[in-house]
């Protein structure tokens, strides 16, 4: 019996099957790069190799890190990116339309069974569509762009099984913070993680993306979820073409002897992770009354449409506490537009939110909104390493959009269920 990961890899290296530990060379179906690690870093290497990209139709370029343009340096990066995209005849270029991991699927580029690489560590997000997608550095990306190939050690699959049903105001982000605590940031061992179980399939596709995204925080190479009807509906509504054989990628039975980490969704409480690691998570209650300065709803992890809607469900008819600033950076222009149409933006705005562009924003540690010395932030992003979102003395706590929003109202960290019963 084979796993989803092995099936995709076997297809990509043109073998009937592969075994964990085997070294193989795979053909890449899609390579995604962004303005930070992309053109400005791969261009000199491709020039040195005297090569153009192997297949312009299989390359997607997104500008999201150095957005908005706010200095000569960032302007130069954008100019270089645009020019390079033109010279390479790349049509799939999404300029300042949102964060790469959200934009790529929303434009219909991902489908079950694909083998993809991204020039960013959160590329496992693509796993939510049943695609084997993983992050690589710029030199390796240049190698992929020159050859269309990459070597890989076939991973074992580590299963993360969530049974039961989630309680109200508990969501994918809480599942991931709890998983980080349980198995640790090295727990993924650079193998393939696959999320299975009832609570996973109950989630919307965008919530599933949060799980796959944070496979990076578990140190896994990718974070797969077997495709189902929801996946297919999402792809169709994004204008993507669904492969006829998609059901053959609906593999989610653990192979014999595989490691299965079991969790129970029905007993999960909202989580908060303390600085400086996502694995420092506890029930949000443990942090009750911890004070903070900035509430951030942002990033590919925590500012998709579902995340904005979650925050709005808490903030409706409420105002954020004085002394707290709530910053919201919707993950993509499309999600922002949808949120506007559905009245979600209005709710956030009325509660006192300040909006930032559809980009990585503070999450990447760039830009004028980065955290100042000693500032404490409660954030819906994926990663809270020391100094990541600003000054080395700033402190970063992670939580779900529900928890961030509720805490912003209370003025101290809280389990959102406390606010919502009152």
């Amino acid at each position: 019996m084979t796993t989803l990961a092995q099936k995709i890899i076997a297809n990509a290296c043109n073998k009937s099957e592969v075994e964990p530990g085997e070294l193989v060379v795979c053909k890449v179906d899609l390579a995604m790069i962004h303005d930070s690690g992309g053109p400005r870093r791969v261009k000199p290497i491709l020039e040195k190799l005297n090569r153009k990209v192997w297949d312009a139709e299989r390359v997607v370029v997104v500008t999201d890190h150095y957005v908005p343009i706010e200095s000569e340096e960032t302007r130069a990066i954008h100019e270089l990116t645009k020019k390079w995209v033109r010279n390479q005849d790349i049509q799939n270029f999404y300029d300042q339309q949102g964060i790469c991991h959200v934009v790529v699927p929303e434009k219909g580029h991902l489908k079950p069974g694909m083998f993809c690489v991204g020039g960013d560590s959160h590329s496992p997000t693509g796993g939510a569509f049943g695609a084997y997608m993983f992050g690589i550095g710029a030199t390796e990306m240049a190698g992929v762009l020159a050859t269309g190939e990459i070597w890989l050690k076939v991973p074992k699959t580590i299963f993360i099984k969530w049974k039961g049903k989630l309680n109200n105001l508990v969501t994918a982000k809480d599942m991931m913070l709890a998983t980080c605590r349980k198995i640790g940031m090295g727990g993924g061992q650079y193998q393939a993680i696959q999320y299975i179980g009832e609570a996973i399939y109950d989630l919307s596709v965008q919530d599933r993306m949060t799980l796959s995204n944070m496979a990076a925080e578990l140190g896994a190479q990718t974070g797969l979820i077997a495709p189902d009807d929801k996946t297919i509906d999402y792809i169709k509504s994004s204008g993507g073409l669904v492969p006829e054989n998609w059901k053959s990628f609906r593999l989610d039975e653990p192979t014999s002897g595989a490691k299965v980490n079991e969790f129970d969704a029905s007993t999960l409480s909202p989580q908060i992770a303390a600085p400086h690691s996502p694995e420092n998570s506890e029930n949000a209650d443990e942090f009750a009354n911890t004070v903070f300065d900035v509430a951030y709803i942002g990033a590919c992890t925590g500012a998709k449409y579902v995340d904005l809607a979650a925050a709005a469900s808490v903030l409706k008819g409420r105002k954020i506490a004085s002394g707290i600033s709530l910053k919201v950076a919707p993950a993509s222009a499309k999600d922002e537009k949808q949120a506007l149409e559905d009245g979600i933006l209005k709710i956030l705005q009325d509660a006192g939110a300040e909006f930032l562009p559809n980009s990585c924003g503070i999450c990447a540690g760039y830009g004028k909104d980065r955290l100042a010395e000693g500032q404490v932030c409660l954030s819906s992003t994926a990663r809270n390493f020391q100094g990541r979102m600003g000054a080395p003395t700033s402190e970063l706590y992670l939580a779900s959009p529900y928890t961030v929003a509720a805490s912003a109202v209370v003025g101290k960290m809280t389990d959102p269920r406390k606010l919502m019963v009152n």
Partner: protein
Amino acid sequence: MSRLWLFEETINTDVLAPGFYMKSPLAELSQHCLEAVRPEFASKVKKGDVLLAGDNMGVGSSREQAAEVLKFLGISCIIAKSFAGIFYRNAINLGLPAFLLPKDSQLPKEFVDGSSVVFDFENSILFLEGSGIQINLDPLPAFLQELINDGGLVPHLEKRFDEK
């Protein structure tokens, strides 16, 4: 002879290559390498020095600069209990040797931060200068060894394209 830089803690890419300096040239970025945990590192590290880290070395973003700054500052080899996958690939692709401590083996306690060491790449052995104490590291698979010998992925591909 090289200095051993020993880190017990997990080192992530944000401390190796802080986001704020990512748009700066490598020379400037490298001056901030590890400043959050070891402020003197960038100014004191010398060519040929060896960095030895604990678990999950280089965890975090895919930014290759995290490995590149170490190479730029002169680190000749990184050894760790375990590596974050992307960082490991990046280091090798840049021609910076990265070795794993053998599973379940303890680093002899004589190896401390600041020790003088000699690294033997061919045989993947780290010697403690003048003591007879050594630790044998897991050798690299042959094709990765070849990548390193070629000087990294780019020179390796140049060679491959030339041969065609």
